[in-house]
């Protein structure tokens, strides 16, 4: 039997399928997904899909005919995987036993929730297309929104809601939003964007419960304050979907603990995407990443690792993600968990870059309202240029942007 089973029908899973065909795999491919929906793109769900004029559906990444006919995929959708048997080489999904000779595990993450409030009808989360449709519909009639969590997803939701004229309050448990994502100082600069656009941000604020409040709800904080909200969105991060692997014997932790080649330590099985935790040789540490480009690259790599049993190529990525708040593009590349950072540019008008360095070397960058700089800085990060050169580059670009008469906001 020659069958690749890809568990997880999202971006990483799709790229695994396409990569398998690209390297000449001619056996059967089965794509297993828990949602009853063809693979689709998630970044628009917290952006365009929530806008008032958005349509009722989102297009799949590939048409069904392309998947079935061109790529020769057997689609097993609406079938959550429940177990993996690495001895008999079987994926259990939706009550079926699917035998495999190679498998890619890309089951992604689900939203973290707050049990005390999650069951209230005003409370939403955002991960799937159905979540996005439900949230957009709720926003259609809303005057007030409370977002729990000042991370990137919560901030994007707040931004879209403000564009729809909705009054928005963000409730953030820490005093330093985005500290783990971009560092405390840059996180504070980003949070100012909310206030400049009329979004209230309550720091050091945790949620106790939700009460009925007229037609909407009241989000009750642990210090007794109440935030009135027609709609509440919980945007407090995600957890990897690994419970289905509990009986598999695979090494699990914050995701599936893989080797450098994304192999899971069992012949013919590799992992990819948000669920994959791997040691990246370029950066000398383990990562589990929730970035679009990483999911795409890992899906392709995991298929090669799963199918080519004799070649173990290490996987490495340049971390990268993009976001947009209130029309300001925010991009981050490389690593930000560094000893030093430096803001270059005008943070008052939200046009600046932040450089991140360690041991005198440039390792990462955040660009805010300066999308033209991101990939140029990425090249410097790849070249491991020293800190002084990186700072000189960023400053020279800031001056040239100022003198060419580009708008300052």
């Amino acid at each position, binding site marked *: 039997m020659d069958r690749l089973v890809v568990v997880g029908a999202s971006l990483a899973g799709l790229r695994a399928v396409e990569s398998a065909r690209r390297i000449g795999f001619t056996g059967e491919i089965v794509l297993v997904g828990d949602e009853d929906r063809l693979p689709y*793109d998630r*970044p628009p769900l917290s952006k365009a899909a929530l806008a008032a004029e958005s349509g009722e559906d989102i297009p799949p990444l590939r048409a069904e005919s392309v998947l079935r006919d061109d790529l020769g995929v057997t689609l097993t959708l609406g079938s959550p995987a429940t177990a993996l048997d690495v001895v008999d080489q079987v994926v259990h999904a939706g009550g079926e036993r699917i035998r495999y000779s190679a498998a890619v595990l890309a089951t992604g993450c689900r939203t973290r929730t707050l049990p005390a409030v999650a069951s209230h009808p005003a409370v939403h989360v955002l991960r799937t297309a159905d979540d996005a449709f439900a949230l957009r519909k709720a926003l259609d009639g809303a005057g007030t929104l409370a977002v729990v969590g000042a991370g990137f997803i919560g901030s994007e939701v707040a931004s879209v809601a403000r564009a729809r004229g909705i009054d928005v309050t963000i409730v953030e448990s820490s005093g330093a939003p985005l500290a783990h994502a971009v560092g405390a100082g840059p996180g504070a600069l980003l949070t100012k964007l909310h206030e400049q656009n009329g979004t209230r941000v309550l720091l050091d604020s945790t949620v106790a419960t939700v009460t009925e409040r007229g037609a909407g709800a009241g989000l009750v904080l642990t210090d007794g304050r109440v935030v009135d909200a027609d709609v509440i969105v919980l945007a407090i991060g995600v957890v990897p979907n690994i419970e289905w692997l509990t009986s598999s014997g695979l090494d699990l932790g914050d995701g599936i603990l893989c080797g450098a080649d994304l192999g899971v330590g069992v012949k013919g099985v590799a992992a990819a995407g948000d669920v994959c935790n791997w040691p990246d040789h370029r950066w000398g540490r383990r990562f589990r990443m929730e970035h*679009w*480009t990483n999911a*795409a690259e890992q899906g392709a790599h995991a298929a090669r690792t799963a199918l080519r049993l004799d070649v173990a190529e290490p996987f490495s990525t*340049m971390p*990268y993600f*993009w976001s*947009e708040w209130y029309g300001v*593009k925010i*991009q981050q590349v490389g690593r930000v968990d560094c000893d030093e950072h430096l803001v270059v540019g005008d943070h008052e008008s939200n046009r600046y870059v932040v450089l991140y360095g360690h041991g005198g070397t440039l390792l990462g960058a955040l660009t805010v309202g*300066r*999308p*033209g*700089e*991101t*990939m140029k800085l*990425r*090249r410097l990060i790849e070249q491991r240029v020293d800190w002084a050169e990186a700072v000189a580059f960023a400053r020279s670009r800031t001056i040239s*942007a100022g003198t060419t008469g*580009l708008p300052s906001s």
Partner: protein
Amino acid sequence: MHVLIKDTCQGCGTCEAAVPTIFQVNDEGTAVALTDLVPTDLEQAVRGAAYECPTESISISE
């Protein structure tokens, strides 16, 4: 090979990361093709960039 950036571009810059001599993101947040006609030795790389584009905004015609 000719290359064109569609107006669905979000300026995420994966194309510039892949082929900086052909693609560049401007400060308005849109990628531009620095040339309309792609040199033969870069055609494969440009096809790769089109495949990797998150918003499928790179249009190629032979």
